[in-house]
């Protein structure tokens, strides 16, 4: 799916806390075991041991790999097929930083995992361990030594990246000036080229990202209801908070069913097709954070074309009530989701109407505990659109009455840059029948800036975006009002669809807050890579304190990639995966065998997810994309990387020390 639903913060916090407690427990245990060695800790000895590890790597000519990597980057950059000048820089920066990261990680793993076992094998450790050196100083010294080597490699590769990108940028700038002087460029391209000529290609912008992106049937003026188009174009999601253990297990043959209820608003649209005799209808379903079905609408006992919302003739009951029945056999599936992000999917099924739902109207009743669960306090329904290649799709309508995308900005008024608010819009454009081609009519998008509290129009203008190219435009300072404003996008070209995204991987519309130095941004990016290498080295040294070096290398990779790997299969391993596994792969007619396999697979999935919580989250080390996309590395990104790196490195160093302290180094 193209977007991620907002997580339930409390659950995420509790997961992080588990790892935090584990780390703190390890640190305390390490201190308790080796308090005397901790008190003896000497920076002089630490630096001396680290220096010998560093010098050893230098004399083994490890940094000589860097010229080879540089050559690889240059070749890769030459073979790339960028779509425009900025993309050329983007791809080159991506190659260079990816290669830098890979180099430091690989060098870190190999050197750090092999060093200690080799010192034990060659017995060099005999002359170290018989000096007044604590095992803590040995472990920490190794980590520091290889971290120094990583820093040296990063400095060399950083200098190369900076120089190569500057040379490339200068060459491309000259080409841009040549093209602009020659003329004969279409309006959109000229707009981009002039922008690159004026601000350069090596960017490091700090952006304000929208807090949310929602797609509505029409702009919801403050105080008015919010409406979605019927499925499959749009739908609504209401978060449902069910605490862990809230659904008690019960015998399916005697247990009572559970009930899911929502009140769905509707309104007839004037353009409703007359051929549509039926009234409004809607469906409910339960989905997880990735919109994988937990309980489908048919399992709730709802008709495939939706439950009619229209009251009997003569009545005007509004909104319409939908109640789904969750049979006792589905209890285990739902119980497994308790305490995890769960959403009620609400979608209108009949065209000619707009649909809406209030989060407070959604309820899950558990009769045997007489409990009723609903949306978290202050939660609102999320209005989302169908996902396409480029994100949530917004349909074009030449009449100007089509659906709208609303990107919400909240906070203090953003600072102006050179008297205006520069913005960037990056979108993919599709048309009915496929991707946009050159022969197609250009896409017109109307953008409105509205005050969030009053809905007052602050500024409006038309844009002509190109597919998969960044459109740079600026609005006057007054457009952002008091700082709480909505940007409303409406496509005015019929048959064209623009794809929009929001979330941690970058929003389609971004407000430029300031221009930072590219060198400073590159330095921050390299710092994140250094923190990553520190984590890698700590894991590798830790593994090498109790394993032979080949096993230590493998275990380091497993620890490093474990959480990411589990997150990749998490979409599949939702509750109920065991049942699907039995149905699709392990086909058996023996119900007892099927149950064992199904429960076994579910337990395995849960165990994997539980273990993954204690592994480092390498996705926090976002070093490459910001530099490639010209985005300033946020201090929070640096902070998150440092937290993960130090949060794991310190306990691992202490744990490695404890292992080494009780290890016979001269067996």
């Amino acid at each position, binding site marked *: 799916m193209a977007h991620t639903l907002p997580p339930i913060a409390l659950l995420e916090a509790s997961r992080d806390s588990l790892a935090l407690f584990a780390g703190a427990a390890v640190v305390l245990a390490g201190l308790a075991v080796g308090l005397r*060695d901790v008190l*003896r800790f*000497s920076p*002089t*000895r630490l630096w*001396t*041991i680290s*220096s*010998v590890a560093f*010098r*050893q790597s230098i*004399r*083994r000519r490890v940094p000589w790999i860097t010229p080879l990597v540089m050559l690889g980057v240059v070749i890769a950059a030459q073979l790339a097929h960028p779509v425009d000048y900025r993309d050329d820089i983007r791809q080159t920066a991506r190659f260079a930083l990816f290669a830098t990261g890979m180099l430091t990680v690989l060098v870190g793993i190999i050197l750090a995992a092999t060093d200690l076992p080799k010192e034990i094998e*060659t*017995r*060099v*450790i*005999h*002359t*170290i*361990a*018989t*000096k*007044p*050196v*604590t095992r803590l100083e040995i472990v920490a010294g190794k980590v520091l030594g290889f971290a120094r080597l990583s820093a040296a490699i990063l400095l060399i590769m950083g200098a190369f990246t900076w120089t190569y990108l500057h040379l490339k940028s200068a060459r491309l700038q000259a080409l841009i000036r040549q093209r602009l002087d020659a003329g004969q460029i279409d309006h959109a391209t000229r707009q981009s080229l002039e922008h690159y000529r004026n601000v350069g290609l090596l960017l490091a912008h700090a952006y304000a990202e929208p807090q949310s992106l929602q797609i509505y049937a029409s702009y919801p003026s403050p105080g008015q209801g919010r409406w979605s188009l019927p499925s499959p174009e749009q739908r609504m999601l209401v978060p449902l908070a069910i605490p862990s253990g809230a659904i008690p297990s019960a015998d399916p043959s005697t247990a009572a069913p559970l009930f899911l209820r929502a009140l769905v608003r509707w309104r007839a649209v004037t353009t409703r097709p007359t051929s549509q005799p039926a009234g409004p209808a809607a469906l409910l379903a339960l989905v997880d954070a990735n919109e994988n079905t937990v309980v489908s609408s048919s399992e709730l006992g709802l008709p495939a074309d939706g439950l009619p919302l229209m009251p009997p003739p003569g009545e005007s009951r509004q909104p319409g009530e939908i109640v789904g029945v969750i049979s006792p056999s589905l209890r285990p599936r739902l119980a497994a989701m308790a305490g995890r992000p769960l959403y009620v999917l609400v979608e209108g099924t009949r065209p000619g109407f707009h649909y809406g739902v209030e989060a407070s109207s959604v309820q899950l009743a558990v009769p045997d505990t007489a409990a009723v669960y609903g949306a978290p306090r202050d939660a609102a329904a999320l209005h989302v659109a169908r996902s396409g290649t480029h994100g949530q799709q917004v349909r074009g309508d030449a009449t100007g009455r089509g659906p709208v995308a609303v990107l919400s900005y909240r906070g203090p008024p953003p600072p102006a840059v050179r008297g205006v608010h520069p913005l960037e819009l990056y979108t993919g454009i599709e048309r009915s029948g496929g991707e946009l081609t050159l022969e197609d009519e250009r896409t017109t998008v109307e953008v409105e800036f509205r005050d969030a509290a009053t809905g007052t129009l602050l500024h409006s203008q038309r844009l002509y975006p190109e597919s998969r190219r960044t459109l740079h435009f600026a609005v006057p300072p007054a457009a952002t009002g008091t700082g709480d404003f909505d940007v409303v996008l409406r496509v005015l070209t019929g048959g064209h669809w623009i794809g929009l995204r929001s979330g941690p991987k970058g929003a389609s519309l971004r407000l430029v807050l300031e221009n930072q130095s590219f060198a400073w941004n590159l330095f921050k990016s390299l710092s994140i890579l250094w923190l990553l290498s520190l984590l890698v080295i700590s894991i590798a040294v830790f593994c090498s304190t109790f394993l032979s070096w080949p096993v230590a290398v493998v275990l380091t990779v497993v620890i490093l990639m474990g959480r990411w790997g589990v997150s990749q299969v998490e979409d599949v391993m939702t509750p109920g995966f065991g049942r699907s596994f039995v149905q699709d792969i392990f086909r058996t007619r023996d119900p007892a065998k099927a149950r064992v396999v199904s429960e076994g697979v579910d337990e395995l999935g849960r165990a994997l997810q539980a273990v993954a919580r204690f592994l480092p989250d390498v996705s926090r080390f976002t070093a490459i994309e910001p530099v490639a996309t010209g985005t300033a590395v946020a201090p929070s990104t640096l902070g998150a990387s440092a937290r993960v790196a130090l949060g794991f490195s310190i306990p691992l160093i202490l744990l490695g020390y404890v292992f080494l302290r*009780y290890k*016979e*180094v*001269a*067996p």
Partner: protein
Amino acid sequence: MPEASEAVQVQGLTKVYRDFWGRDKVRALDDLTLDIHRGEVFGLLGPNGSGKSTTIKLLLGLIFPTAGKAVVLGQPAGSPAVNERVGFLPEESYLYRFLNGEETLYFYGRLFRIPRKELRRRVPELLDVVGLDAKARKRKLREYSKGMARRIGLAQALINNPDLILLDEPTTGLDPIGTREMKDLILSLKKQGKTVLLCSHLLADVQDVCDRIVILYRGRKQTLGHVQDLLQVRDVTQILARGLSPQQVEELREFLRRMGVQGAQITHPTTTLEDLFIRVVRENTPQGG
């Protein structure tokens, strides 16, 4: 803390090596009890596999005892605090091969937190003591001969001016001159009041320098005592005299016969091959060479 009277106290020290499953594999050392006095040169003798190296590793904390305990300079063996006052020359010179001689000594010196200024004085001094010339000091250790490696190994063992020095097969790889220099150095260390624990299977070396020895066999202590006491043949008497003429020798032989001494031998003593070799080399060494 008052200084212990013994440099090393070992009581019931036992080491059993176990396999992966925890089953006993080898009993390398069995119930060893001994004391090493301060200021003496103590020899640890035994054939291969007798438990000599295991004893040294236990005293240095490189491995842990299965039973018993070892106290070094009044503190538990192997603790970093004890290691401040201990020097160790391993069986082979296990050193960083990518460092040169000087760098090696600076590295080990810094592990003792010896100030750089002090090291600038001590390192050349030590290199002189162990006989490494200016050219050798700048060469990487991987280019060293076995004898040079032993010398730099000895220098690192002495970098902290230790009170207790453990030497595991110190003369291995050394030529006769080097061997003699090593033995002279051991005696000079003894003169400085240091305790030396010498582990070797070259009996002549041990005999030349050790005050007391212990002989281990199959992990057990077989004999412990002063070298002279242990080597003394109590029912044989030796008379040494310089400058006797053949006639005087004959008279002496006659006298012994009259005393009823059977099987008396009067011969010229031989020097050792080591002494002969050193004399020849020294006599043929050019002045200043």
